[in-house]
Structures are given as structure tokens and as C-alpha cells.
């Protein structure tokens, strides 16, 4: 029983990690707290749903299309909400406000598109199959969630740490000005990070939309708040940290719901966030760059 709960927790956690990775990537590289990330995630679920219901695409194609479209939406978000602020050299608070505004706009459009209804993926998008594995029950959906998360995260790591593009991104993360002097085109790096971030959110959106079979214009908020916990636990801007903390959060949440109380689950999770912020605001893992402006001396 407890092994099954742990497995379920890790499955949920892998999607939290997927969602939080994109969020933390933008913070780590550009020092932007993108509050519209949840809206991009929600739109990813909508894109996947429309690709499958309106255009009758098979699931894998619809999944890929949703990922690409969510990536492009995120890039558009950067152009509209963040680029004008960058040009002026505005303080970090402006980016928070601007992205909250952009998130509201995106949510309102989704509300109009869906008529405030909860949309569902058509029955049989992923056949309901249950495998037994070492005495544990794994559904096909869970397997897809874990495997696609593993694949995407592995691809991200290869991209970030073993390609020329990834090196440019890491250079900008350390110091944008110096990287620009050394011939890195910062606009291209912004394009890449926002596309990757949106793509990760879109993938998480489709997976969550299918797993809980509910696509709703408010679905992003809850994950946005969870992502705060993940990235603070893992360290704002830490890719590895987001991965581990995401899994951990899924585990904590599933176990508290199963063994403590479903009502207290949120209170416990956010209390953890608060305590971590006080004790170790830089999180428990290394980051793409050293975060110096965390606490007062």
C-alpha cells in the first residue's frame, strides 16, 4: 500500500518537476519571476485538447503540437510583457506585475473560449490499461507521464550542458552583459529559454489535463502555487533542484493526503515553503549561477 502511494506520488511529482523546470529556467537565466507560467501551462492543455478534438490528430501528434504552440505562446509573452521592460532596465518588481497582468489576459481568453466550462479529453485518447509491475499497479497514463517527463528532462539536460546553445544560455545566466560582449546574441537566448520554458509547461499541461481529465481556465493557478514551493525548495534557478524538489513535493502531497488529511495538505506544503524560505532561502541545490541577492546582511 505505501509502496503504491510512493509510486503515485512520484508520478504526480514528475509533472510538478516538468512544470517547475520551465519556471526556474527563466528565473535562473534571466532573473524574471514569470507569473504567467501557469497560464501558458493551462493553454498547453487547451492546445492539446483542441488538436485532438477539433483536428482529430492522434495523441502523440497532438501532444507535440501542444508543446510547440505553448513554446511559441511563451515567446510571444516575452515579447509583449518582458521585452519592453528590459529595454527600460525596469526593476524586477515590474516583471512580476507585468506577467501577472499577462496571465490574467490569457486566462480570460481561455474562459471565453471554453465558456467557463470544464473541458474533457475524448474517451479513449489514451486507452485505460493497467500493468502490474513488481506488485504495483501502473496505468498507461501514469507510464506516459513518467516516461515523457524522463525523456523531456533528459533532452533538456543534454541541451543545456552538452550543446553550444546550452553553453550560451549558461553564459547569459552568469552574466548577460559579459556574454553579449563575447558574441552571444541575447535576444536569441531569450527566444530559446522562453520557448523551452513554454514547451515544458505545455507538456505538463497536456499530461495533467489527461491524467485528471479536466481542462479548465483556472487550472494553472494551483500549479503555479505548487511551483513556488518546488523552486524555493530546489533553489530559485536550479534545474537539478527543481527536478528533485518536484518529485519530493509530489511525494509529500500524496502521502499527506493518504495518511494525514487532504484538507491540511496545502497548509503543510505552504508551511514547508515558508520554513525553507526562512532557514535556507537559496534552496538545497546548486544553481546556474550564484544567487546573491536573497537575504539582507
Amino acid at each position, binding site marked *: 500500500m505505501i509502496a503504491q502511494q510512493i509510486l503515485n506520488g512520484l508520478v504526480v511529482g514528475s509533472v510538478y518537476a516538468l512544470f517547475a523546470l520551465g519556471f526556474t529556467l527563466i528565473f535562473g537565466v534571466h532573473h524574471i519571476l514569470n507569473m504567467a507560467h501557469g497560464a501558458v501551462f493551462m493553454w498547453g492543455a487547451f492546445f492539446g485538447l483542441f488538436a485532438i478534438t477539433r483536428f482529430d490528430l492522434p495523441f502523440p501528434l497532438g501532444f507535440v503540437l501542444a508543446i510547440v504552440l505553448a513554446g511559441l505562446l511563451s515567446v510571444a509573452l516575452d515579447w509583449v510583457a518582458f521585452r519592453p521592460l528590459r529595454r527600460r532596465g*525596469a526593476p524586477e*518588481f515590474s516583471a512580476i*506585475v507585468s506577467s*501577472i*497582468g499577462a496571465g490574467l489576459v490569457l486566462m480570460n481568453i481561455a474562459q471565453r473560449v471554453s465558456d467557463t466550462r470544464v473541458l474533457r479529453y475524448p474517451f479513449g485518447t489514451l486507452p485505460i490499461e493497467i500493468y502490474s509491475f513488481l506488485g504495483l499497479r501502473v496505468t498507461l497514463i501514469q507510464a506516459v507521464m513518467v516516461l515523457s517527463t524522463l525523456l523531456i528532462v533528459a533532452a533538456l539536460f543534454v541541451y543545456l550542458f552538452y550543446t553550444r546553445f546550452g553553453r550560451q544560455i549558461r553564459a547569459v545566466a552568469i552574466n548577460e552583459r559579459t556574454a553579449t560582449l563575447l558574441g552571444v546574441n541575447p535576444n536569441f537566448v531569450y527566444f530559446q529559454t522562453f520557448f523551452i520554458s513554454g514547451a515544458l509547461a505545455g507538456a505538463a499541461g497536456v499530461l495533467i489535463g489527461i491524467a485528471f481529465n479536466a481542462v479548465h481556465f483556472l487550472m494553472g493557478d494551483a500549479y503555479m502555487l505548487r511551483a513556488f514551493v518546488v523552486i524555493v525548495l530546489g533553489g530559485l534557478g536550479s534545474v537539478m533542484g527543481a527536478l528533485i524538489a518536484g518529485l519530493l513535493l509530489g511525494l509529500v502531497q500524496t502521502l499527506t493526503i493518504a495518511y494525514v488529511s487532504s484538507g491540511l495538505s496545502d497548509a503543510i506544503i505552504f508551511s514547508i515553503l515558508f520554513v525553507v524560505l*526562512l532557514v535556507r532561502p537559496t534552496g538545497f541545490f546548486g544553481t546556474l549561477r550564484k544567487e546573491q541577492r536573497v*537575504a*539582507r546582511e
Partner: protein
Amino acid sequence: MIDFVLSYLPLLNLIILNCGLALSQYVVLRAGVFSVATAGLASIGAYTAGLLILRAGVPALVAVFGGALTGMIAALILSVPLARLRGVFQAIATVAMVQIILSIALYADDITGGANGLNGIPRLVGTPALLLFIAVCIYALWGLGRGRVGAAFDTIRQDETVAVSLGISVQYYQTLAFGLSGVIAGMTGALMACHNHSIVPEEFGFDMLTAVLAYVVLGGRRSVAGPIVGAVLLSLLPEIARPLADNRMIVAGGLMMLAIIYLPHGIVDSIAIARRRASGPLASHPSVAGAADGRA
């Protein structure tokens, strides 16, 4: 004529309550604290007042001051950990705090009524009381803002290092701002409880947080008039233009983006800066023009 005025009283009351929340958010932002705790503090005030009235049957005045007191205490407790954090980390911590209060309000349903909230609270305050409340708040903040405290707030917001070098205790003034914010938020929450007949936890969630932030960003963070103008505008817009009511979030979100990108100081402060530039003796001096552009 009387009917016409009466039909708009509920709207006026709503605007006044929103102004109260906006002022609570304004105080912390003016002092350079990136806190968005207003929704959580208002929730504490509202539940305090609601419970005092329903369980203990106290008069409205006691309930409202009880709400203000608990709001202030919560804010002062919160200010201790927040003083250690800065920037986005303060924002994240206060978002977490709002969520913790929300989930506790949902969980402790034998005290707070859970998801149903507190119902059947008699309406104990009317428009005159609300007007008096907001007038006192505006006067108090205006008076504080004109003097030493306001100058200290502005200095800390624009450059903390400069503030410290001038002998301004950042911690003292930010705690003061936090306490003020807590009093105003708690009182506004208590008045909401005394006015709306019922309070539910979701009222004080992420939606309120973003709405209140929008008021201050749109109006401005320096003068007391800023949050008032922002709250009045954003509360009135959906009423004036009915088709906009369905797209409330597009209006609020779009205005937030436009304001922070093109009017980073908000409507009121941008006008004030423009006027000072046009008339002041140092109008052409670049340092005056740039002074307000710091960490606003």
C-alpha cells in the same frame, strides 16, 4: 434623485472597501517591501470580526477594532521573517502566507465554517461608517507620508543602501509599514464582514491579491491618491462599460501591463512628476527628472 443615489450606494460601498485594501497594499509598496500579504491580512480581520459578532455578539465597533488588532498582530509577526528576505523572495513568502491562511480557513470548518464560510452576519455598517473609515485612513497616511516617515519610506524604496547610509533604520520603517498595512487590511476585512452578510475563504485568495496589486500599480505608489484612483477606476470600469464586465480580467490584466510598461509610476505619480518637471526651478536638471526613476 434619491432613488438614483440609493441604487448606486452598494457600488460606492464596494469601491470604499476596495480603496481600503488598496491603501493597505500601498503602504508596504511605498516602503519598498514587495509584500502581497494584504489579502491574507484582510482575511484574518474578516474572520475575527465575523466570529466576534456571531459567537460573542459584540457591537460592530468592537468587532472592527478587533479585526484591525488581529490584522496588525499577524502583520507584525510576519514582518520578522520577511525582514530577512528581499525582492522576489518576499513576494513568494507572502503569497505562501496568503495560501496558508486560505487553506487553514478551509480546513478548520468547525470554527470558520470551511468552504461555506461565515453566514448570517447582520449588516452593521453603512455608507457613512465606511466613508468615515476611508477618510481617517487617507488622512492618517497622508499625514504620515508628508513627514519624516514618508521621506524615509521613499528613500528606502528608491535605494536601500542610500537609506542606510543616511541613518534610516530599514528594519524599523519596514516593520512600521507592515504594521500599518496590517491594521488597514484587518479593518477593511472586518468592515467587509460587517457589510457583506457573509464571508467565504476564496474571497481572500489569489484573485484579491492580484486585484489589489493592480489598483496600486495603476494608480501609483508614491502619493496616497494613487491607490485610491486605481481602486476607483478599476472598480468602476466594469460598471460603466457593461460589455467589459465579462472581460474583467482582460481589462485588469491589460491595464496592469500597460501601466507597468508605459506608466511605471502609475497615473497619479506620473502626472505629479510631469508637473514638477514642467514647473520646478530645476526643471531642466537631469537629476531631478531622473530622481523618481530609481527603484520605484
